């Protein structure tokens, strides 16, 4: 499998705090890569370097390179908005906009200049289908997004991200605020989406990582401890610390 994202000797500082330490890894295309590790080890931080959401946090310093499809995303000629269009993100808490379901999904395409009603209708339908939400909402697209359940809201956020046709989808604990059934739906959805998208997900749920991902990365204190095929990492970890973590012996 081809690597889509290449991270090379990446270091990130929040002020003086060294949050990511010398991280190098290759994330393959059209597969699910899971980040696991104890709270505060830097999973979200690394995820957010991939769409440059850390730019907005004052005092953040980065060195090393992150390239996507061969282009250094921290390079001078990179347009952050274009990058974020290509690298979608779903957050831990569902964060639909206080607009209708339709307008939530159409928000992204409209930003990027699509105004034709017909085209928007098409995108909205496809994205909602892609996020496995269409059948539940097709009859009331004009209703407020807040009228949906938490799990539906999260799928709406996925649809919203899909609507701008990203290549990569970042999911930061996207199911941690949801009930088991909604979680399962989103996991199934991720399985479908990986046919077309490269997915990187952060999860605290070891079973989830084991169930859905192809690769798993285990982090500790800002460092990568182990990175391998999910099956191998869970059945036969190389590092003692990985083994301790996945067997719940520390955390």
């Amino acid at each position, binding site marked *: 499998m081809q690597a889509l994202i290449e991270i090379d000797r990446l270091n990130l500082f929040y002020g003086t705090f060294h949050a990511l330490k010398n991280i190098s890894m290759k994330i393959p295309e059209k597969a699910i890569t899971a980040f696991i590790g104890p709270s505060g080890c830097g999973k979200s931080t690394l995820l957010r370097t991939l*769409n440059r*959401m850390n730019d*907005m946090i004052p005092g953040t310093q980065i060195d090393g390179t992150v390239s996507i499809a061969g282009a250094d995303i921290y390079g001078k000629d990179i347009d952050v*908005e*274009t*990058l*974020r*269009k290509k690298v*979608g*993100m779903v*957050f831990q*808490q569902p*964060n*639909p*906009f*206080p*607009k209708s379901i339709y307008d939530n999904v159409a*928000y*992204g395409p*409209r*930003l*990027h200049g699509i105004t034709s009603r017909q085209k928007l209708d098409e995108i909205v339908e496809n994205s909602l289908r892609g996020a496995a939400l269409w059948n539940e909402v097709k009859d009331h697209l004009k209703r407020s997004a807040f009228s949906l359940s938490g799990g539906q809201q999260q799928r709406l*956020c996925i649809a*919203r*991200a899909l609507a*701008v046709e990203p290549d990569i989808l970042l999911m930061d604990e996207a199911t941690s605020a949801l009930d088991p059934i909604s979680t399962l739906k989103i996991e199934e959805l991720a399985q479908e989406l990986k046919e077309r998208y490269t997915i990187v997900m952060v999860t605290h749920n070891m079973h989830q990582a084991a169930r859905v991902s192809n690769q798993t990365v285990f982090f500790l204190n800002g460092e990568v401890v182990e990175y391998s095929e999910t099956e191998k990492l869970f059945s036969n970890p190389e590092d003692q610390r990985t083994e301790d973590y996945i067997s719940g012996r520390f955390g």
Partner: protein
Amino acid sequence: MNPVKKDQAAGNRRLRFPKHIREEWYGRVYAYFCVTLLIVTIVSIVWFIASKGLNPFLSGAVSVPELLFGRTWSPESEPPLFGALPFLAGSISVSLLAAVLAAPFGFCAAVFMTQIAPKVGRRFLQPAIELLAGIPSVVYGFVGLSVIVPFLRNNFTGQGFGILAGTLVLSVMILPTITSIATDALSNLQAGLKEGSFALGATRWQTIYRLILPTTFPSLLTGVVLGISRAFGEALAVQMVIGNAPHVPRSLLESAATLTSIITLEMGNTVGGSLHNNVLWSLALILLIMTFLFVFTVRMLERRAGR
């Protein structure tokens, strides 16, 4: 168990009402007393204004349409004419124009303080705006009289007094109201909303005008309505710059008058119980009704914003 505590417990049992229940009871009585006093005050003010203000209509001296649509105000003529249209027109036009002028500035200041430069905003702009809110209206009027009126007189036709001068003074006066409510609304935005927009590739400006402004719109409108309401009720500063001529203004530079300015001007020259005095109370009643309408509107907007 500590013997002293035991004693106390026994003592309280003898009293039947333990201390905390008594305290609760005192608190309740005190709170009810205050609330009753408050309600009595409000009701009696409304009652007083209404009974005086309705008098001219009930006695048949003036009819409601005459008051609301009459263009001539000459209490001294024979028979006296009480047409309040000039004041209504004056009040409404100064307040609305002031809001139209102040709202964009207020919104921009709020966006700047919350979205663009929160540090500078909180350090300098916020205190400046709070200061603006604390300046007494007579000072505004004085500044208007000695700066704005001469400026208008020298650069445009007329004496400088009029709707435009009143609008300019009022817009500065209501700027703090609009700005602080807008700032609150913008800084209470739900967490993650902006990030969601940025993550889709929106620029900061796109996020502001496509997401933040529409989301906070009812709250922004609340600020504007409160601003209009303040402008509508402001008497002194307006009276000092508007010229106080009781006719319907044809231009922004022509001398005019408002409901409040005419009340403050003429109240002292009338005898209590006379028709002229009572008609001034009718004007006060109109102000009161307008205030109710504003409060009602704000309530509705808030309910909408809360959803």
